[in-house]
């Protein structure tokens, strides 16, 4: 008798909770500003992606509503920040419970609107609730009200409880604008839960249109990463596990990523591709409401056409094993394009959606070279069974989050202090674009500083801190204090390791590389030391733009540092009109960050991001007198001088 496949039979796609929730609102939604507001703005119809049927009507927020939202968020934030940590913690915990009550509704709303399978939505929500509770616990313990630190204000953390939770716990108000099809209904449901939990009206706002109104909000001084998710498979990996997990990730891309890339070692590439194809053929593609579904529908017909064309025109032969596809909805069979080169058009532009682009490498060193080409990936998975190899690659990858031997460990929740700033400094905010200007050519200074930076970073946190401490001992009191404070802090706060059952998260801070800073006119030596301390302690090279007339004192400071053991050339001083030099620097792709620690005369003339790949801009506008308290400022400056990387791993013999 021939074998008969055991069929799963018709799947279940429960959507009662979400449909009932939508029906209670008569299917019409507008922004949430301290509560539901009249849907006045231009309307559009949301589509249930799996079936193509109408889901709800969504009205965009009008300009007056956006202004109201800002005002409401501002006043709510002031009240909220005035509460004690424990008082915030209580409400956040209630919110977590209110979310739990709505868990089925929320996952169904996400599935209906965004196509994210409920299977993945449940994990997302469970991790989100855990992050929210953790943030509440941290607030309870007083970590949200540390002396000298204040909230950023109104922030835009995005639709992720692992970010919203810490942002709110730290005393901020949050505004969300996921956009139609991006989870607006789920965001509205979260806001409703927040209101029920007694969070102040206006603390969590949902705008129903595009995200532009959020652009001017305060943001943490760390670069936001975007781009494809990276999977790195070494020859000593558990290849079956890697292939299975990577294939499944096609239906559950890490948040913030667009598209997925595979780097696989030459010696095992064929086997890994074959196993991927086998697993991709068995993925369940279909209705995201069915708990068995691995891969939901695409968000639009345009993407389907683009992917189809890309597969047809690929320079390499794609592998697209065809699982059973449902008749309705924009479903697309997951595909793999092996044998690409870094210079292939697909690799250069990237492909969003369930298409895996694969290139091979010969050695771990080459893997790092290929993986770090291009902007840093928000998220990467790394597969190796050898600790030495895995740690080598994980620490060398530029990616924001590296999951060792797993794709679904997800990003770790933000630390609270990411959403806070020193009381004396104005919040970092982006700057309006402006035409480029001319100033002196900084190339020689940048090149010289860049050359010695890796050696300095390689000395380790303690070694660097010791040089700063020795230099501080030779200096006048006003410059010594910030250097010494920073040295002590940097030597002890290098990385954190936190553990859960069978898994751990390592959060480490790496130097940005090369930082240029406009020095403030106020108290030149003190301010310069306050800037140089964190920049150097974190392992960076520095280019200083002194105020005219302060140059001599700065050169003296640098001489003392070099006498204490700082590599010659690590700190460069660029003379000339600081504003003109800053404009030139803002357009450099070989500069990692540009700090404007000036008064009010510069900001509006600097571009947001002059060139793609240009420096991250940070405005640290010090209030008068802020430099006299180096302790508080140094922590914020240290954070701005580093790039946090999270390495997550799980263990089990």
């Amino acid at each position: 008798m021939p074998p008969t496949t055991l069929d799963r039979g018709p799947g279940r796609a429960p959507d009662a909770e979400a449909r009932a929730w939508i029906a209670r609102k008569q299917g019409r939604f507008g922004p949430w500003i301290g509560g539901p507001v009249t849907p006045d703005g231009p309307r559009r119809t949301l589509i249930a992606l799996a079936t193509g049927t109408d889901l709800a009507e969504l009205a965009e927020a009008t300009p007056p509503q956006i202004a109201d939202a800002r005002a409401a968020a501002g006043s709510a934030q002031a009240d909220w920040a005035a509460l004690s940590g424990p008082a915030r913690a209580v409400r956040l915990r209630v919110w977590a419970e209110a979310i739990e009550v709505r868990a089925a509704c929320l996952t169904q709303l996400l599935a209906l609107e965004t196509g994210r399978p409920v299977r993945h939505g449940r994990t997302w929500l469970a991790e989100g609730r855990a992050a929210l509770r953790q943030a509440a616990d941290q607030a309870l313990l007083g970590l949200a009200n540390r002396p000298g630190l204040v909230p950023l204000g109104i922030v835009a953390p995005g639709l992720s409880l692992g970010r919203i939770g810490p942002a709110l716990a730290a005393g901020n108000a949050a505004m969300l604008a996921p956009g139609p099809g991006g989870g607006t209904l789920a965001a509205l449901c979260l806001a409703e839960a927040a209101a029920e939990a007694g969070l102040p009206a206006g603390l969590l706002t949902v705008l129903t249109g595009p995200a532009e109104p959020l652009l001017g909000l305060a943001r943490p001084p760390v670069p936001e990463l975007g781009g494809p998710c990276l999977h790195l498979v070494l020859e000593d990996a558990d290849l079956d596990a890697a292939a299975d997990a990577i294939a499944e990730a096609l239906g559950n891309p890490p948040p913030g990523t667009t598209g997925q890339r595979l780097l696989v070692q030459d010696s095992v590439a064929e086997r890994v591709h074959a196993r991927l194809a086998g697993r991709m053929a068995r993925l369940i593609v279909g209705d995201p409401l069915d708990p068995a579904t691995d891969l939901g529908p695409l968000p639009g017909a345009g993407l389907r056409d683009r992917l189809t064309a890309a597969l047809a025109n690929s320079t390499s032969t794609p592998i697209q094993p065809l699982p059973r596809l449902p008749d309705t909805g924009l479903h697309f069979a997951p595909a793999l394009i092996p044998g690409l080169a870094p210079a292939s058009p697909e690799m250069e532009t990237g492909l969003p959606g369930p298409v895996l682009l694969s290139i091979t490498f010969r050695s771990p060193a080459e893997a790092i070279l290929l993986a770090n080409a291009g902007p840093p990936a928000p998220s990467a998975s790394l597969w190796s069974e050898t600790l030495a190899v895995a740690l080598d690659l994980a620490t060398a990858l530029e990616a924001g989050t590296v999951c060792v031997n797993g794709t679904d460990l997800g990003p770790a929740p933000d630390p609270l202090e990411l959403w806070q700033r020193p009381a004396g400094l104005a919040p970092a905010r982006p700057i309006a674009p402006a035409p480029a200007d001319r100033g002196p050519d900084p190339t020689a200074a940048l090149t010289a500083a860049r050359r010695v930076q890796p050696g300095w970073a390689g000395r380790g946190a303690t070694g660097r801190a010791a040089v700063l401490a020795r230099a501080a001992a030779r200096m006048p009191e006003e410059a010594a204090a910030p250097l010494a404070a920073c040295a002590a802090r940097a030597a002890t706060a290098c990385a954190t390791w936190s553990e859960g059952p069978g898994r751990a998260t390592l959060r480490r801070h790496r130097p940005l590389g090369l930082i240029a800073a406009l020095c403030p006119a106020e108290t030149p030596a003190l301010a310069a030391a306050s800037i140089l301390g964190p920049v150097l302690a974190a392992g960076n090279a520095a280019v200083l733009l002194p105020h005219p007339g302060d140059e001599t004192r700065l050169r003296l400071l640098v001489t003392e540092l070099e006498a204490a053991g700082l590599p010659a050339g690590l700190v460069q001083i660029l003379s000339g009109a600081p504003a003109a030099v800053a404009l030139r620097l803002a357009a450099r792709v070989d500069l990692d960050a540009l700090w404007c620690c000036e008064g009010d005369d510069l900001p509006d003339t600097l571009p947001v991001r002059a060139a793609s790949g240009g420096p991250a801009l940070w405005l640290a506008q010090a209030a008068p007198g802020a430099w006299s308290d180096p302790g508080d400022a140094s922590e914020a400056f240290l954070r701005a001088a580093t790039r946090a990387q999270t390495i997550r791993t799980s263990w089990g013999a």
Partner: protein
Amino acid sequence: MPGEKTPTPARTAGTQPVQKHNAGLPLDTGWVAATRVNRPAAERHVAGLAARRPADPAAEAAWLLRAVGLIDLTTLSGDDTPGRVRRLCAKARNPLRADLRAALGAGPVTTAAVCVYHEMIAPARAALEGSGLPVAAVSTGFPAGLSPFSTRLAEIEASVAAGAAEIDIVISRRHVLLGDWQALYDEVAAFRAACGPAHMKAILATGELGTLTNVARASLVAMMAGADFIKTSTGKEPVNATLPVGLTMCRMIRAYREATGIDVGFKPAGGISTATDALDWLGLVGEELGPRWQEPALFRFGASSLLGAIERRLDEIAFGAGSTPRRHAPG
């Protein structure tokens, strides 16, 4: 759901196809050494199986009817008697109540085999006469496998001579724990030769092998040495069949098949005692190996209490009023 037709019929009773023997391979220590298994990844992978169980009751009934036909109904107790074995064989021949089968629209059903100690082969054979059901015997110093090598070989020969069509051997765990793959290979190959025409299932006792990597390597060596089936456990270890172990063994069977074209069967045993367990294991082998491993020629459950749990679940599906053990004949 009386009156509804089940989508897939249960296997016709007593006619399981016989898989040809695994010819084996020379020991390839390079392949063995290169095999690595990451336990957390395996655990996360099997956690997704629960969501893939059939949601539709008719499909679930079809899966459970299939599962009944895959059971090696087992008794391995010190107090086994011919009478007890005859009762078990009667249950193996007729595992489901007639009205229950009728309500599910199922044809005649039997379990896949009966599994006993050597001394119980004769009464089992007599009780299964005419049913076509094979008798499987555990052997080679079951469960620890620490009796003299010559005795273990002689035990196989005696059981084959007594009419056991399938022999479940146990491996020496120390060969795995010491990494002595040659010794393991030689041992299993000698057992294979002693089995002659009988089918050989190699019990790896995975609960005593320490790591999933060891489970994978022992699976490979047993298959290279000619095992027709690889089996997780004796049922006497502290930890028996778990899904991560099952996933690991299925992946090795797939790798062996890719390398040789030979299909090796899989038998999880011990600790599989609920209807949802059965669904998860059937889902696992279906996904990893394909539908041929959902047939008795290549897949068995080693279980004693699983059948009762499946009967109760089928009862619930068929009549919608729950179930109790009283409603089903004991084995």
